[in-house]
């Protein structure tokens, strides 16, 4: 009995070693990426996490326990920033997805050449730096010399202080993101639309389905995993929005565009409160981590 058990253990070890040996090259090729992740992602995350428990000073740091977190939670601006970030996310993620779906739906039936033109046209802004886009949109939304107010003046509307009033500033930023930032989503949706079997559409047409029926009952269900992916990725990136805020509004007016990522920057570099900034970053990390877990959960469900 004991002999059999030993034999089984040895066989198991042998196969494990064989498996390990055959996978070793795979691990070896993964190593460069692991090194990059370790150095430029994991290490800064751990360093940031540790910093959130210190009052940081270049001359020396002092352990302050949870004080930075308490100060952050007591700060009204933190809650405003969290609210703004959530509103921004709620506005741009579903809004952007709807825009991307509609545009993809319009582009998809076109000839491959025309498709390529539109794909390139919509993707072009994604190639540009966010700062450049922000500057262009800042001009479009300028209350005095902006293109948007100029166009509205033809129908006797405005001028509106798009970025200068607390009621319109965040919505203006969301509008910019919805209209100008869907290039990548369109490419992904179009690629996945191409993978939907044509036979499904043919059957639906035979059964009397109109274009709306085809879109509603075939395209959307078949794109469910893609939509889910875009939703979650969109939520994660919108929670980290910083560059457009920094360039276009500086978090104002009256904190109306202060987001969590902007607050982190402002605490660290305007106030030199690196500990509190790290505490806020830790909270942002937790929020994004939870959202990522939701992503994994939904993908797993989808696989089932």
């Amino acid at each position, binding site marked *: 009995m004991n002999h059999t058990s030993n034999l089984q253990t040895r066989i198991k070890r042998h196969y494990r070693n064989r498996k390990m040996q055959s996978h070793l090259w795979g691990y070896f090729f993964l190593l460069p990426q692991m090194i990059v992740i370790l150095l430029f992602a994991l290490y800064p995350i751990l360093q940031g996490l540790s910093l959130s428990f210190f009052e940081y*000073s*270049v*001359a020396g740091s002092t352990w302050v326990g949870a004080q930075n977190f308490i100060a952050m939670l007591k700060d009204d601006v933190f809650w405003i920033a969290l609210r703004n970030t959530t509103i921004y996310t709620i506005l741009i993620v579903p809004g952007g997805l709807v825009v991307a779906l509609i545009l993809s739906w319009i582009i998809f039936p076109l000839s491959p050449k025309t498709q390529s033109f539109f794909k390139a046209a919509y993707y072009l802004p994604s190639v540009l730096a966010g700062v450049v886009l922000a500057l262009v949109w800042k001009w479009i939304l300028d209350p*005095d010399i902006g293109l948007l107010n100029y166009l509205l003046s033809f129908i006797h509307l405005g001028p509106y202080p798009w970025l200068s*009033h607390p009621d319109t500033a965040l919505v203006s930023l969301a509008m910019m993101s919805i209209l100008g930032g869907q290039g990548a989503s369109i490419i992904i949706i179009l690629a996945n639309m191409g993978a939907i079997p044509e036979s499904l559409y043919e059957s639906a047409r035979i059964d009397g389905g109109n274009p709306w029926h085809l879109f509603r009952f075939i395209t959307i269900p078949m794109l469910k995993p893609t939509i889910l992916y875009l939703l979650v990725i969109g939520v994660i990136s919108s929670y980290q929005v910083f560059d457009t805020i920094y360039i276009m509004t500086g978090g104002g007016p009256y904190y109306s565009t202060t987001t969590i990522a902007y607050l982190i920057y402002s605490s660290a570099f305007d106030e030199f409160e690196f500990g509190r900034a790290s505490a806020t970053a830790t909270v942002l990390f937790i929020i994004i981590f939870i959202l990522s877990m939701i992503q994994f959960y939904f993908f797993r469900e989808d696989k089932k």
Partner: protein
Amino acid sequence: MIKRMNMKTILISIIMVVLISATACGKSASPTASGNKETGNTATGDTATGEKAAEPTDLTVWWYAFWNGKDGTPEGWIREKADEFMALHPNVKKINIEMLPGDTGPQKIDTSIAAGSPPDVTYIDLAFLPKYLKQKVVIPASDYMTQEEIDDFFKSLSDYATYDGKLYALPILIAPRVLYANKTMLEEMGLADKLPLEGDRSWTIEQFKEIAQKFPYKKGGKTYYAEQINTTALNWTHLFWFWNFGADLYNKGDTQFILNSPEGVKALDFMLEMVDAGSFRLVSGGAKPSDFWAGDLAFSLGLALTEDKVKETLKEKTPEGQPIPEVVAIQFPRGPGVDIAKSYSGIGGLTVFKQKKADENHTKMAMEFAKFLTNGENNKIVKELGVFPTKKSSGDVFGGDVNAKIARIMMEDGKDLGKGEQTYKIFEKLINAELDSAFSKKKTSQQTLDDLAKKANDMLKQ
């Protein structure tokens, strides 16, 4: 087997190297590196002279394009001074000069401090000195200066850079503000005769209102405003209205924020009235400010420039095809019960930052260079910028210039943004953001200022 062993060895070696590198990075970035402590504790003045003073060293200086050198380039002046200094101190082998852009230079300094690698010497706006003191990165200049050297600064200026009895920066320029008026625009509107151009050019808010209420002025499809209230980023020119209505940011000693006084409320009501009437343009959030020097506004607060410098600026900024307007400097209008117009003077100075691995000789040479740049003779160069030197020994550099005279009058009762550890935070984080709540009609003036005062006083208690 051997192959597997080799592979394992390679993997383990690589992982070890990565981990060791990461740990090494951690240590070098650690703020508790011993170099700081050594530099900080040994910064005690003349103790490092003698043998160590002769040790060769290099310095790093970050500078702005303030004025040109003999070669006509912005970096020319600092380069010439660096060469002169190295001739006087042969042990300083090299002075590395890096020119900072005016708009993002302060950010670069902040980032370098955060990263633990600031320059040896740089120029800063002294309003932000407390921020750097909190980080314990500034070396006290007074430890390296004689009392006679300190006394050569105008007292109000050295006081401004003194904390806990130690001078932490060497003031190099004082830039008082005056109000400029576009006389040509006002002449077109038939209002120029209402400007106070006689005597000391002082006037009242009521006189100013007589002109301002004629705005907005529309011409050629463009709208012109009397003034602008700019609450974006770190703008503070609207504080002049508070100060000249008799309100103050802080009590004496900066222990309490008191802008919600009746005078403060009156000032904010006045600004709201002007914005609502369209006389003043509100610049907040992402709006682009108007440019007075390009002819967009009738009045604007600005650095006190000499008459020649004003002409030069106008020539440079006036859009092509437009006639160059006449611009005059006047005092800021005074509110009821205010006898002398209040001004704010930006004071710029040189700081010497602690270095992780610097020895005493290096620190001493950095301080000597800062002293050299601010000595009575070199300090006269600030005239090129149209601002005032900070050393008594520099003398009167502007002679009888009218604008300089107006600036000197307004310098008599100067205001500042506060000197406490929290005051710069209150300025950077609270004031403009909270004032926006009044300008966007979310709150009344009284509510806005009361809420601002409550938050500011909470911060002061921290």
